């Protein structure tokens, strides 16, 4: 893999982001006694601070891979490492924004965002971080609201704030912008990029939207149908902020859609 060579050259200076190595990972689920292979020999190595977008058909195993990276499940074969340390359980340095916002309905917005700091026992001294995170997603005025009082997009933003407040070294995003309206979505994309540039965390973003992947990521990985295999690993060497109309991106987009089997329509 090209990226592996790149990692060897990468200087190990102290960045906020962590390196992530996914090595020959295969995974399967047992459904009614039958084995359902979901990931097949997936190897990806992500440099510290890289923004990697994962694209693939629905149900191919993207969320499953993210769960493995988070340490919520163990792979059937292969290994995952964060900065050369094997991932065996969840750790707040790798925070996930799940496909569903899964806010805790019994906690107010503020308390939801404070969850990570509270779980790590550092909330008392760091309350300001919660306020900052809420500011960031533009929901300061909803701090006292309960999740049932939020719209779908607002709930998704709270989930994002809940992740960001922990200053993760690897931010794992499972279609976090999927439920937003297109306007908020574009704003949040810009926010995400500037945040990533400022903080330098490594980002793993699953998305259905090739354009979103190209606007945000410096690397796009395309998966095959289930069981997921890495079908293509595309570098996007374009400065930020990127423009949607950029012919270079449009070209890449056509290429990606082709890989996803949509070339006939585009």
């Amino acid at each position, binding site marked *: 893999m090209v990226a592996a060579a790149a990692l060897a050259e990468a200087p190990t200076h102290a960045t906020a982001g962590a390196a992530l190595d996914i090595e020959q990972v295969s995974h399967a689920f047992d459904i009614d006694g039958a084995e359902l292979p979901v990931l097949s020999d997936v190897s990806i190595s992500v440099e510290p601070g890289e923004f990697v977008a994962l694209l693939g058909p629905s149900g191919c195993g993207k969320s499953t891979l993210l769960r493995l990276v988070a340490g*919520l499940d163990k792979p059937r074969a292969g290994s995952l490492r964060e900065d050369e340390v094997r991932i065996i359980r969840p750790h707040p340095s790798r925070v996930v924004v799940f496909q569903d916002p*899964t806010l805790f309905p019994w906690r107010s917005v503020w308390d939801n965002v404070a969850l990570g700091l509270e779980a790590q026992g550092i909330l008392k001294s760091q309350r300001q971080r919660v306020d900052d995170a809420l500011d960031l997603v533009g929901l300061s005025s909803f701090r006292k609201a309960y999740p049932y009082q939020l719209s779908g997009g607002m709930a998704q933003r709270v989930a994002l704030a809940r992740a960001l407040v922990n200053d993760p070294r690897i931010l794992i995003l499972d279609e976090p912008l999927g439920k937003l309206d297109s306007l908020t979505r574009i704003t949040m994309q810009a926010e995400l990029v500037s945040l990533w540039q400022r903080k330098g965390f490594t980002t793993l973003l699953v998305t259905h939207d090739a354009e979103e992947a190209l606007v945000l990521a410096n690397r796009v990985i395309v998966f095959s149908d289930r069981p997921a295999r890495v079908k293509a690993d595309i570098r996007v060497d374009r400065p930020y902020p990127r423009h949607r109309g950029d012919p270079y991106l449009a070209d890449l987009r056509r290429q990606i859609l082709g890989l996803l089997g949509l070339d006939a329509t585009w």
Partner: protein
Amino acid sequence: MSTYSLSDGLASGAPRTSRAPWLATWIRESGVGVLASVAWIAFGLSCLWWEDVGDWSRTHSLGIAALVIAAVALFGTVASDYLGSAGRALHTRAPWLVALGVFLTLWEVATAKFAWLPLPFFPPPQSIIEVYTDDLPKLLDSVFASVKLQLGGYLIGATIGFLTGVSIGWSRAVGYWVHPVLRFIGPLPATAWLPIAFFTFPSSWSASTFLIALATGFPVTVLTWSGVASVSNAYYDVARTLGAKPSFLVLKVAIPAALPHVFVGLFMGLGSSFAVLVVAEMIGVKAGLGWYLQWAQGWAAYANMYAALIVMSLLCSGAITLLFAIRDRLLVWQKGTVKW
């Protein structure tokens, strides 16, 4: 959290158009209040007009009190606009005041005045008032004894039930041992233990406390358990990726998520523990409202029985009101809960 009730809307939202004739408006606004006043005047007069068929000492005072209530209802209705929330409260309850006045009038006439209902079994309102004034110390003692017994047993049962439920829901090992016991013993009505309990426990008080705790504990355990067991894994995943330790998962995820179920269990436990309380007091404990009922029956003092029943129902409904108030405070995050 604001709740919307229809009568609030009618009271405050009705437009006062100047074109409507003022009399029609006034009748619509105050008619029920006036009617309530009339009903209570009727009750008061029914007390004072005819002679009692029996010998009751509070008839006159009751009649006067009814007339006072009628006056208050009338004044409250007329001055409703100036009385603020008290006026609004009176306004929303006026239909009930009418019904109550009519019911009391009929009751008075059917018992004390013409004895249409057989007398010792259907005492008139004034004889129940008589119980409250003349037998107050004994009644209060009984109330105190009942509340003490119920509260002790209920708190013990609820605490143990809650802890057991959380443990079964959380730990497979605890579930393995406790679940069969729960299945075997739980469905047994707590009253079935009565004879054994009164022999084996050192005092009838400890025996009844045990039975009340048992009656409370079973539903609380089962519902807490089912609440903890039904917590979505997604919540645990979120908490774990944010660095939560197992204690955090239990205290800050499992328990709050299970709380709505827990309150259903507490509510059911309250109901079944009332039943045990009364039976235990009737059979073994020489105090409390159950015992008072039993004692009154022994003397064929029917008025005392009705008086005790009324107190009992006020206490039970008060306990449930309190439980629901606590629940509404703790579960503000839930929408669409039943208001008690």
